[in-house]
């Protein structure tokens, strides 16, 4: 009996969380294929089709809007930002974890604190820098600016991760003939891979989520990222194109969610090493 209760509690809990998380996405899925005439009648069942489904919204999304380009732009920016983030954060984390002493701790906290600066207005002074580099209206502006919020997180995470790797192993590599840098690349880096996977996935998520900088720096529709592109193209004046909006949101969420699903164990391992030590 007790076991039965525990089991039903377990599945009840799971059901709750799944419904809570996924219900909006279910609505997105239905809305994506729903005729506007069906959608805009409040008497109709919002969870299913009252009128036959349609592919119009999907067609609009993929053939008549720049949605595929938004996806591609987001992907490109994401990849570039991840690369820059790693280039900046990995050595910094290594230095903070292995070399720097007390001042390193303070610097680490300092880097973390940059998160507290609200981005709401930062984009205005930042735009001056962007124009200094002549990067207005270019994906490069985002690639240059996004590491401001990926680097602190990733540095922090990697720092803890490096700390969790025994120092012996690195010193062994030094003695086995590696330079400091060589030991890092040959030994420390491969051992930190779970942490690096975590960092990549998180950085990518943060990038795909960003809205304000993208808004301020990109005006050319063909160069927009997913968040601003969709709201520009599919929220026109006082009309929401609900079908394509919902479909676009759903489709954009799926690849990354798959990434999390398959890498979850790794991410968890990465965070476990990262957050506890």
């Amino acid at each position, binding site marked *: 009996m007790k076991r039965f209760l525990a089991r039903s509690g377990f599945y009840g809990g799971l059901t709750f*969380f799944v419904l809570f*998380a996924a219900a909006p*996405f279910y609505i997105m899925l239905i*809305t994506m294929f729903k005729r506007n005439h069906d959608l805009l009648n409040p008497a109709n069942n919002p969870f299913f089709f009252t009128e036959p489904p349609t592919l119009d919204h999907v067609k609009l999304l993929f053939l008549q809007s720049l949605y595929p380009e938004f996806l591609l732009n987001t992907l490109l920016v994401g990849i570039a930002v991840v690369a820059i983030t790693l280039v900046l954060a990995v050595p910094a984390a290594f230095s903070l974890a292995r070399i720097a002493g007390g001042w390193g701790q303070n610097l680490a906290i300092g*880097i973390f604190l940059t998160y*507290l600066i609200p981005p*709401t207005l930062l984009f205005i002074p930042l735009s001056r820098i962007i124009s200094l580099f002549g990067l207005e209206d270019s994906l490069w502006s985002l690639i240059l600016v996004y590491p401001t919020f990926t*680097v602190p997180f990733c540095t922090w995470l990697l720092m803890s991760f490096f700390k969790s790797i025994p120092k012996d192993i690195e010193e062994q590599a030094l003695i086995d003939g590696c330079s400091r840098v060589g030991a890092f690349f040959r030994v420390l880096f491969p051992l930190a891979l779970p942490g690096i996977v975590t960092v990549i996935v998180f950085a990518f998520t943060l990038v795909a989520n960003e809205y304000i900088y993208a808004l301020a720096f990109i005006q050319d529709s063909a160069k927009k990222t997913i968040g601003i592109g969709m709201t520009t193209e599919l929220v026109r004046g006082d009309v929401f194109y609900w079908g394509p909006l919902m479909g676009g949101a759903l489709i*954009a969420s799926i690849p990354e969610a798959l990434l999390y*699903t398959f890498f979850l164990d790794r991410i968890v391992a990465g965070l476990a090493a990262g957050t506890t030590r």
Partner: protein
Amino acid sequence: MKTKRLLDRDEVLGPLCLLPVVIYMALFIGFPFVMSFVYSISNVTIGNPHYRIVGLQNFIAIVEDPVFRKSLVNTCIFTFVSISIVIVLGHILAELLRREFRGKWVVRFLVMLPWTAPIALGAIGFLWFLDSVFSPIDWLLRTWGLLGSPDSLFGAQSNLYWLGRPELAMTSVILVHVWRILPLAAVILLAGMNAIPREIIEAAQVDGAGYFRRLFHIILPLLFPVIGVTILFATFFTFTDMTVVWILTKGGPPPNSTQVLASLAFLKGIAGGDLAQAAAVALFFFPVLAGIAAIVLRLVKKAVVT
């Protein structure tokens, strides 16, 4: 050969590794931050890049502004309640995800979705989900007879007007934030739980500790560093985020029932044009937050060391 030697020296390699980050941060965070600070003590407006310093008058003006005070209270409620719920639910979700069960992959996928949806689009999804006419939740309630007829539990009106009633609107905004951050919190907490040595929990079990005793005396204290970091991240995401509020309510329902500092800064600075006051709003809480963060981080560090 010589450079290689130099790179083997800690006092060279250490700063060298940090240099790119420090330069980058100084340029892309430091400079804008200093500029924001200058804005906050100037009379700059959105349309006029030429300004002069006017001292603390912007800060005085916002402190006197009832909208600011309301936003401050809202921000605190919003952050505190969201984070509390996220931590509790995140813990439960992490417990559930630890177990083995059939269909685990599907569940993981569905549960992670909110975190991976670009927030602007997720919020637009909720705009529909909570619509004053079309809300699917309302439709369900009506179908179940809980809404829309005189003897219904939630009243005779056809809809709940999620975003139209001040309390429900705040609830909705919190709900969306919880929805979004929960997966992240669950993953971090899951990691924390996995990192607790099994022997410690087994030892407590042998000592006859029940589930809750284990939870409160063993697991939670050991999880403290993880929870601390989770709270910090979640707080930053909540405290500085304006997208959810902006898309769902623009700070409404009037008068400013869900206005938070981040959205107020945007409202004043961009929509209203008064960049100086907006900067003051945005920076008002920086010292306090920085203090809290520093303390939590030190506590976390201490907890790890001992």
